[in-house]
């Protein structure tokens, strides 16, 4: 007889899995990327050591910055703690808090987090941080319609916009996976994820060139535990987006269908395996494309938009 976990514990485990594994996934991606480029690269666990070091360091704030500057990292991190409650991380059946919000609700919470980081960047008074915040919001405005069209596709496919419902629909039959609308929406979402996590066609991840920076420029003025929270939050956001892509769109298999402890543990392992695979794919994309010029990012967004719109069109008008 295996142990049956109570529902609140599973719900909490979803958050713990995401938050705990997020730096590891980031570490894995930079490791794979380094190997692809012929470097040895940092250890997979390096991000954890970085976070531990930053948490021990002293925190400084620019002169004139108000409490918002210091509160924003914690607020953003709280947002990233909330989203894993809403999406299918470990279970194929909806957990009670899963109905707290739909895909749009999760999207709103993620945008709230990025809004808070942008406010903190403005508060810092540093030109680079402000530039990054302003760029992030500008390009965010053109990737938002893509997300909306992806949500429309989901809504047309399932009749709801709950992530659990789409995962169940995709699992239902092979015909669902072959539907062009589903593939197009997934591809568009992947492009948005590349943008949101600051990956190559859009932005060089963890690079030193300020001119091309978008997301990376925002925490320039934060230090110590605050910087650690921002870094950890960025890694958590990345894993949350990967989880949405993998567990809702691309491969919603391997999720626990019962409350038994082994099934849940297996689901956690499966999620990390799938996220690691997606991370390897992202690393390959990172190494095989050049960074787009800043003014070409609209073209990248236009391509993602095209995919999402075609998804809705084939589904709604074409019947595919």
């Amino acid at each position, binding site marked *: 007889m295996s142990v049956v976990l109570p529902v609140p514990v599973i719900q909490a485990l979803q958050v713990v899995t995401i938050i705990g594994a997020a730096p590891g996934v980031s570490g894995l991606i930079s490791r794979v990327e380094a190997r692809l480029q012929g470097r040895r690269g940092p250890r997979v666990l390096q991000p954890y050591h970085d976070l531990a070091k930053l948490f021990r360091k002293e925190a400084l704030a620019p002169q004139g910055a108000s409490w918002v500057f210091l509160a924003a990292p914690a607020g953003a991190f709280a947002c990233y703690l909330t989203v894993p409650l809403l999406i299918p991380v470990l279970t194929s059946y909806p957990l009670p808090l899963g109905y707290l919000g739909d895909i749009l609700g999760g999207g709103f919470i993620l945008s709230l987090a990025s809004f808070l980081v942008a406010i903190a960047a403005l508060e810092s008074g540093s030109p680079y941080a402000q530039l990054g915040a302003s760029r992030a919001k500008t390009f965010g405005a053109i990737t938002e319609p893509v997300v909306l069209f992806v949500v429309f596709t989901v809504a*047309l*496919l*399932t*009749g709801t916009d709950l992530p659990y419902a789409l995962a169940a629909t995709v699992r*239902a*039959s*092979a*015909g*669902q*996976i*072959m*539907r*062009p609308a589903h*593939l*197009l929406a997934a591809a568009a979402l992947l492009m948005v994820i590349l943008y949101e996590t600051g990956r190559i066609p859009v932005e060089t991840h963890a690079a030193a060139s300020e001119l091309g920076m978008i997301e990376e420029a925002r925490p320039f003025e934060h230090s110590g535990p605050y910087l650690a929270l921002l870094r950890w939050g960025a890694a958590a956001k990345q894993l949350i987006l990967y989880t949405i892509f993998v567990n809702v769109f691309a491969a919603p298999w391997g999720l626990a269908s019962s409350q038994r402890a082994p099934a849940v543990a297996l689901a956690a392992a499966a999620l990390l395996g799938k996220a690691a695979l997606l991370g390897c794919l992202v690393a390959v994309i990172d190494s095989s494309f050049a960074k787009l010029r800043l003014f070409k990012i*609209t*073209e990248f967004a*236009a*391509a993602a*938009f*095209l*995919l999402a*719109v*075609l998804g809705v*069109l*084939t*589904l*709604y*008008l*074409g*019947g*595919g």
Partner: protein
Amino acid sequence: MSAGHAPGVYAGGADVIAVLILLAEFGMLRQALARDQVRLYAAQSGLISALAVIVGAVRGLPELYLLAGLSAALKIMVIPLVLRRLLRAGRVGADLAGPDGDIARSGGMSLASTVLVATAVAAAGFFAASHFTVGGAAAPPAALSLSVSVVLVAFILMIHRRDVLSQAIGLFSLENAISLAALVIAASLPLVLEAALLFDLLVAVIVFGLLIRIHHGRAESLSTTDLTSLRG
């Protein structure tokens, strides 16, 4: 319009190939180099041939294999070869900057707005085709609408680009779109008719080849904007 109901794996797969054909058309619209545009056309033709093989296998129509072979030979090998030789022979495209033929700036609009206009036009194609009631239960539901959209986007390619090569490729890919429509609605169309369509294309290639040579010989340019200087 039954969005919740998934079509079968065959219909879905055929739809996916049709979507890829449409995306290839959009790719041609975005493409900056003449060489890559020819390559994309070959890829699109390859998709058509693959679809012909799949339709032939599923519907049990062996003559489609012959058609797939014929169209692959013609559209993946002969036509791209001819186009590439044309590009090389008269250093055609050299006037458009770069030995590979940089045709990016031959468009009348910026890239992002072209894509948006083409998206709107493709949507119009979907609207138009959603009122057709052809095709049986087994037919891929979206492929016909997609083929109409490919035709319209090919029009946009021909209207928007002012270099002869893009216009030729636009016309050739138009034929691909018509083949797509024919394959999904009337797969058992007699082989002779489809072969005739292919030879029609061959005539178009010869005419366009001549046109490109003559135009380049006279105007020393591939851009059709120079044609205005020929007015009396």
